[in-house]
């Protein structure tokens, strides 16, 4: 167990370094970003001075080595656009994205399991048909389009939900303002519903279909048939035997699912003016704000790695067959 964790941690360090290297190379291909940070009237000397000040006059490998050695001392560098420590800028945007992704994740899993089970139990009926049709549609609609349509329909026409914006919950919680955080929670959730659906609908649909097929598989297994033949009620069969085994594949997916949902966040944050890391990093890439891009990528990779490690460990507890 412990050797497993240690090995994973070593691998994680390699992964993080790889991630920084790839993003560094990707951002440097297009030439140095100095021109984005001088005025349009700057003279050649001023541009040269700015290049030196920003450190882009040094050879690339030196820049990278300097960056990594600073990183090891916990220094992520200063954002070029915000002129503040890059890690602060990233950590400020992170809670909003975590809220949104977590909400979408919970939505995707908590609804997917009952819908999938239901669909499997009523296989071939119109209920199954309609659930699966919606699930198929959910996997065919681009999320920005879903987002704009929801804004038009539920935000503007029906006025059921706020069109855009964000009420923080995690941020005040992390700052120790627990009372404020929880009094804001209903509001925060209310603002989260539409962007959350836009982020999570694809996953919800896919997981519902996944649960349905793994449920069908389990229902066909010998032990379920044995249980049935023993005269145990259908309900008990489903709950005690089938369901338990059917949602295991979904649990395995949670770690990867989170990373997947993060991918959808960039676009949805644009549509709903959600002040998260997706928009931040998109702008940072466009502005070649390399320190912010690097810091975001590292933070996201860390979250992803930790989550997957946790899932593996939990899985080892649930499923006794798995040994590390």
């Amino acid at each position, binding site marked *: 167990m412990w050797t497993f964790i240690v090995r994973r941690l070593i*691998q994680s360090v*390699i*992964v*993080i370094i*790889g*991630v920084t290297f*790839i*993003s560094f190379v*990707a*951002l440097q*291909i*297009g030439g140095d970003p100095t021109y984005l940070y001088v005025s349009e009237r700057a003279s050649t000397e001023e541009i040269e001075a700015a290049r030196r000040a920003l450190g882009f006059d040094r050879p690339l490998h030196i820049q990278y080595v300097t960056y990594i050695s600073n990183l090891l001392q916990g220094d992520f560098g200063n954002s070029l656009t915000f002129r503040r420590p890059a890690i602060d800028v990233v950590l400020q945007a992170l809670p909003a994205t975590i809220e949104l992704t977590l909400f979408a994740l919970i939505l995707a899993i908590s609804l997917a399991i009952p819908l999938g089970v239901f669909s499997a139990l009523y296989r071939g009926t119109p209920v199954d048909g309609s659930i699966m049709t919606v699930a*198929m*549609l959910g*996997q*065919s*609609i*681009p*999320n*920005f*389009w879903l987002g*704009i*349509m929801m804004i*038009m329909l539920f935000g*503007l026409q029906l006025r059921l939900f706020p069109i855009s914006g964000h009420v923080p919950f995690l941020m005040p919680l992390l700052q120790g303002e627990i009372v404020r955080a929880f009094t804001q929670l209903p509001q925060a959730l209310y603002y989260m519903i539409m962007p959350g659906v836009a*982020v999570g609908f*694809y996953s919800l649909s896919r997981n519902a*279909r*996944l649960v349905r*097929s*793994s449920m*069908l*598989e389990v*229902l*066909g297994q010998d032990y379920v048939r044995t249980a049935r033949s023993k005269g145990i009620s259908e309900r008990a069969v489903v709950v005690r035997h089938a369901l338990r085994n059917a949602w295991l*594949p979904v649990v*395995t*997916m949670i770690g*990867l*699912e989170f*990373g*997947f*949902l*993060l*991918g*959808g966040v*960039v*676009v*949805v944050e*644009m549509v709903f003016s959600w002040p998260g890391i997706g928009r931040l*990093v*998109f702008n940072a*890439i466009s502005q070649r704000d390399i320190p912010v*891009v690097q810091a*975001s*990528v590292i933070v*996201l*990779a860390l979250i*992803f*790695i930790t989550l997957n490690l946790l899932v593996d460990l939990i899985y080892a507890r649930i499923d006794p067959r798995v040994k590390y």
Partner: protein
Amino acid sequence: MSLGLKPEHADAVPSVGPVPPASPKGRELRKEFKRAWRSMVVAKWPVVALFILLCVVIAAVFGPLLAPFDPNRQNIMIRLLDPLQQSGNAFYLLGTDALGRDVFSRLLYGARISLLVGLCAIAVGGTIGVIAGLVSGYFGGWIDDVIMRLGDIQLAFPFILLAIMFLVVLGPGVLNIILVLGIGQWVTYARIVRAQTLSLREKEFVEAARALGDSTPSIIFRTILPNIVAPLTVIASFNVASVILSEAALSFLGLGVPPSVPTWGSMLAESRDQLIANRWWLAFFPGIAIVLTVLSFNIIGDWLRDFLDPRLKTIG
């Protein structure tokens, strides 16, 4: 959004029993097809899906012959015409877009590019992934470690960020999109192929091939590969769908194909300013094209999985 890189449906992939590498005779192949067709007809929906995909392919191949107009011919004096409008002696079946281009013609040409992007990206990702997975699984050791760590690095990197980074720098272009989306898929294939290869490596028929003195490439590509084609086709059919959606998302961010290249995704992305003004046709037609195509690929993928997985059929 489908820009993540999780191995979609990884767990839904059937574990197909080893097929000895006997080359199927023509008659057997025909028999196999017949069985497949019968299973399709029984399930009904796959037939519909197949029909839809056939239409898309026809549009893609014969688009230039079917299209009434040059898809890039602008005329800003007749922009945003409703569907079924006559202007002068030209008839616009599905209306015109914000630059006065014929939506119907763009839709037909869009089929070509969207399909091209989808299939090529899968081909790129699939090829890299399959080779990496085969090598990784067959040789093991440090090669395996290196390849799998590379995969981990990519998985830990929200793929959309990588895509944005490269496209911002490289600029928009069909080839760039294909490369970026293709590279985004390889880990999925590599992981599955590796797992399958690991289990096949020790099987008797592989041992036999080795004993007979077959070369390593021959064992990998002629003995092992044919046995993992089935699960790969299932994943590929799902992935085409997600690649088409990814292309749409990148277009939304302004990183898709250049504006002179019509794709369904970019048409949908361009329509977003028009939704609030009720110019529904600009979003509806490309939207419906994406939904139907993606749906069809998903249905085919589902059917393929059921068809290839004998266990599911035992369920009453």
